């Protein structure tokens, strides 16, 4: 625990040093298996933070705990200085944290454009009563959102997909759509769960470019990824999870050189 705090401090000079999200002593078990074991780390505002670790290290569980899909058994999660521990996913999202899933979620029977329109937050048309009491307000907001969707689709260079069925996309296109849609929610921090799993290298590069672009525009990222080249080139710092707790944290070069990380990946260290 103290180690991660130290690392957070050493990294402080390279960004604004402002913590956007903090996980403190988080615990979760499934039966006898301690999946998250007193894990603590922080994500700095403006960073692209990588979260890596061998299979079963508890990365996805960590995402589920942070985003409110799982309830932790102990510890706390803070987003934007607010304690979001134990909140429902939609409440966590209200605090500026949006996540994606490892397997892209398909929205059956919608076009890409429609599926994207789910992204924007607090749409007046999401209130059943306003559909009848304020239809012009709903229409106005819908038009604005539609424009934003088209703009974002263009930025992601997938505007040609707008009227395709959302289920007829390749894995990579689906990841791009997911990222684009998540951005429509205007998150402060975006949690990406394996954004390039099953994505061809060309699209993966495109995704990396998009993530850098969005990061420069002010979005903080926390990214789980198994593709080492991808994550090492993109993220800094990188946090390594092993057996539910933070093994170490540092720059990509530190991580590459770290013996304990190599051990963990090679299945050493008491696995």
């Amino acid at each position, binding site marked *: 625990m103290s180690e991660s705090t130290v690392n957070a401090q050493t990294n402080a000079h390279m960004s604004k040093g402002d913590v956007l999200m903090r996980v403190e002593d988080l615990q979760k078990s499934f039966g006898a298996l301690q999946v998250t074991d007193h894990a603590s780390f922080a994500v700095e505002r403006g960073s692209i933070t990588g979260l890596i670790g061998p299979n079963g290290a508890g990365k996805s569980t960590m995402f589920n705990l942070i985003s409110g*899909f799982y309830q932790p058994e102990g510890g706390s999660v803070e987003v934007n200085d607010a304690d979001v521990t134990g909140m429902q*996913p*939609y409440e966590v999202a209200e605090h500026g944290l949006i996540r994606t899933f490892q397997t892209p979620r398909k*929205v059956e029977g*919608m076009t890409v454009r429609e599926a994207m329109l789910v992204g924007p937050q607090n749409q007046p048309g999401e209130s059943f009563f306003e559909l009848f009491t304020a239809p012009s307000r709903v229409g106005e907001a819908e038009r604005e959102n*539609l424009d934003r969707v088209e703009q974002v689709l263009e930025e992601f260079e997938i505007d040609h997909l707008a*009227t395709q069925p959302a289920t*007829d996309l390749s894995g990579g296109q689906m990841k791009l759509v997911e990222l684009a849609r998540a951005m429509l929610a205007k998150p402060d921090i975006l949690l990406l769960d394996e954004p390039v799993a099953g994505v061809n290298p060309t699209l993966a590069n495109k995704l990396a470019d998009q993530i850098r672009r969005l990061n420069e525009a002010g979005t903080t990222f926390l990214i789980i990824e198994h593709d080492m080249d991808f994550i090492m080139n993109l993220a800094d710092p990188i946090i390594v999870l092993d057996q539910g707790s933070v093994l170490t944290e540092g720059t990509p070069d530190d991580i590459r050189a770290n013996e304990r990380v190599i051990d963990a990946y090679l299945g050493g260290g008491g696995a």
Partner: protein
Amino acid sequence: MGQQAGRESEMSDRFDIGAYWEDFTPIERVLTAALGIVTLLLILFLGTGRLGPSYFLFLFGLGGMYALLSLGLNSQWGFTGLINFSVAAFFGIGAYGAALMTGSNSPIAGGFNPIFGLLIGLLLAGIIAVAIGIPTLRLRADYLAIATLGLAEVIRLFLQNERQWTNGSAGIRGIPSFFEGWPILGEFPRLMPGLEIGIIPGTAIVLETTFWRQLLNVSLMLVFLGAVFFILRRAQRSPWGRLQRTIRADEDLAKALGKNTYRYKMQAFVLGSLIMALAGVFYAHLNLFVNPGDLDPITTFYVWVAVILGGSGSNRGALLGGFVVVAIREGSRFANDIAFIPLDAAPLRLLLIGLLIVLVMRFRPQGLLPPQRELIWPSAVGNKAPSGPDKGVPQSDGGDPNE
């Protein structure tokens, strides 16, 4: 086969009937033709006096009632993916709410204005929908299914056994027609003169008080149906409807995007239950008698058939499905008159409906009139719309997408 031909829609002239026909998907053409044939048959049957006009209107009212029930279930299952096996119960709550307030032998109140009965029926259905939704809608979809399965029986048995409140299996009689006591409409059926129409020499059709009363009932049904259809259509094309469809496809996705899915599921569930109760209120004033037998699970089954047949998620489909189910159920009585079938078709109607479902699932799993392709708030799309209205959606895998 369900794939729609990729036709570019030329929005040339909306009022040109030919252009409309051009715009139809193949299935829409088939259905339009079928509708024409059914209409012709009905005219034939009515004209020859085989089918009494009052009875026809009663059946038409029944069809509208099933269409209402289907729209209710569609807003739960079709929009949001909520599995409700209590259709008959919510229908019964509406029917009993109206009957207990207005019926002549009601053990509770009786004699109230039907509008009051309508409100009570809807209120009761709303309360029970919320009560069953609170514990189940936060859980996985199966819990609602199980809870509603139980609820249906609980409500039915309650109505059957709590005689001091519901008259038990004797039911409630003497329910007035909906417009009883209204200024003009209340007297309308009695004021209308008896008309005699002779289309074919030798057969005269007499239109009497019953006919005019049923005509009023059908008008009432059309008003209910029109209002509900309008509300659901607007809701479906809105961000609200889009959110419901997202929940149906993947609730976790909607949650991750910051949507309070519990609230939206509750709204859809209550909305659907209110529509079902409305159908029940209508039924009470159509049939003028309700008993616990009206809450038999078979009603729920018919409504599910109607929704699946029409196309889950499609309001037009639900409308169609509701009428088709009644047409099969009641039409099988007349089957012997149409063709020289060597056996009685009426007892086979369940088999027919079962067969229909098997055929639909095999050849057109998305239903006859699946939802429109893209549903965006109309005024927002403007001329950006890529396709004309009311086109079938090509489903990617052809199968029912859900669970």
